[in-house]
């Protein structure tokens, strides 16, 4: 039997690292708002999965996948994602989700509970994180160039639309994974806050993305240990920890 705290730390840190890293590209793509609220979409998916007795991860992932397809279409149609539309749609999903999620599961869905994870969750997490980093190392050049100039990227033979889709797909995976850690309300924050902190103290892309991953990992580590010691709910503490990192970076802002 693996030590439960050790398991929580492994899963939590991996998710923090992945969320921070992907978050840096969300910020690069000027999708902070979308990143912040995308997790809200998962709730109706979780509710439907619970009602039909399926693993909530798959319900959440399906809902997130549909949401990223929607964002992707908006991106294709316009130069920038129409943030108002996304904001409204995501808030409505949350309202609907709260309404249809069975009462006993609602709290865990909303705020997550990493203390309930098992070794299967750990395996899924490890596999998914490897997939995410493997994919991102292959597409980060194309992704960044298409942010700098879509026209320039296209003239270099980059399929901007495909790259954007792959990236959003990775975001859907990390958010679905992270629901266990922070829940529907706060997973978006774990994507955006460490990356926003990293941006405060970075000039270039390399340092920005690495620090974002590091800050995500540190927030998870610190948050889970602190919550465990004081017997608090880990999800909000992890997000608060990332907030502390953000405030510290403000002091050294470039």
């Amino acid at each position, binding site marked *: 039997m693996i030590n439960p705290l050790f398991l929580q730390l492994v899963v939590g840190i991996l998710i923090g690292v992945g969320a921070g890293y992907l978050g840096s590209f969300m910020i690069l793509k000027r999708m902070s708002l979308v990143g912040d609220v995308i997790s809200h979409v998962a709730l109706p998916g979780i509710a439907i999965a619970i009602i039909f007795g399926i693993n909530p991860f798959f319900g959440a992932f399906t809902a997130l996948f549909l949401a990223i397809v929607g964002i992707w279409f908006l991106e294709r149609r316009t130069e920038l994602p129409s943030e108002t539309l996304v904001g409204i749609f995501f808030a409505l999903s949350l309202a609907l989700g709260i309404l249809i999620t069975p009462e006993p599961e609602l709290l865990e869905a909303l705020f997550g509970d990493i203390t309930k994870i098992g070794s299967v969750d750990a395996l899924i997490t490890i596999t998914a994180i490897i997939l995410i980093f493997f994919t991102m190392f292959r597409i980060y050049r194309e992704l960044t160039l298409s942010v700098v100039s879509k*026209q320039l990227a296209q003239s270099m033979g980059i399929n901007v639309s495909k790259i954007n889709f792959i990236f959003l797909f990775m975001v859907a995976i990390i958010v679905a994974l992270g629901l266990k850690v922070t829940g529907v309300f706060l997973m978006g924050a774990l994507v955006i806050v460490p990356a926003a902190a990293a941006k405060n103290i970075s000039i270039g892309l390399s340092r920005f993305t690495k620090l974002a991953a590091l800050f995500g990992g540190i927030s998870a580590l610190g948050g889970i240990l602190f919550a465990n010691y004081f017997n608090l709910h880990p999800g909000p503490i992890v997000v608060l920890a990332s907030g502390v990192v953000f405030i510290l970076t403000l002091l050294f802002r470039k």
Partner: protein
Amino acid sequence: MVQVIIYLDQIFNLMANQETILTVENLGVKFDNNEILRGLNFFVQKGDVLAIVGPNGAGKSVLFRALLGLVPYSGSIRWSPKLKVSYVPQKFNIDKDLPLSVGEFLGFKEKNTGKIINALKSVGITDEHHIQHHILKERMGWLSGGQIQRILIAWSILDNPDVLLFDEPTAGIDVGGEETIYNLLKKLKDERGFTVILISHDLNIVYKYANNVICINKEMVCYGEPSAVLDPASLAKLYGGEASFYKHEHTHHD
């Protein structure tokens, strides 16, 4: 009639031993039944500087995208084989907020630092110590408009292109800086012998630097040597009533 002139010109050029590298015949572009360009005929010879002028929304940038094969078109575009074409679009999302250093941006096209330094020297940033310790480490968005334009020119010559397509080389630069950028482009062209096709809104620049000009407003309004074809009549036709551009007038339009 235009066709005949093109063929006659080509025969003449064969006699003069000049190489035609691009022939465009009856080019048309439509987006959703909306006609953007219609019946364009022109050709480009090695070493030419061809300027494309026209009012906003005339289809100049779309013409570039068609030349690069990025949008569907009717008619024919024939580049001579094995040409290396470098393209600098007008639209760049480089703002103060974008965590991307000059070195990282140029590194997306060329890994070899020596080649990057040479390209930067070619665009007038000559101090190697300054390049390595300051320019390459600087955030793109912190540079001035003129400096960004130099970096973009450096980017475009990194892979020794045969043809340079430049959409508004002086967008976002003050009037004084424009001369500098065009002088730089001319110097590079003379040194490296590439062909330049550029979009410009500034007719004074066209008179000074281009040996051929195409005026378009959906269709071709004039085509030939700037001093011969940019007469008040065709300018009036090109820009509607406000024929305020005149050869010796130093009007500036954005």
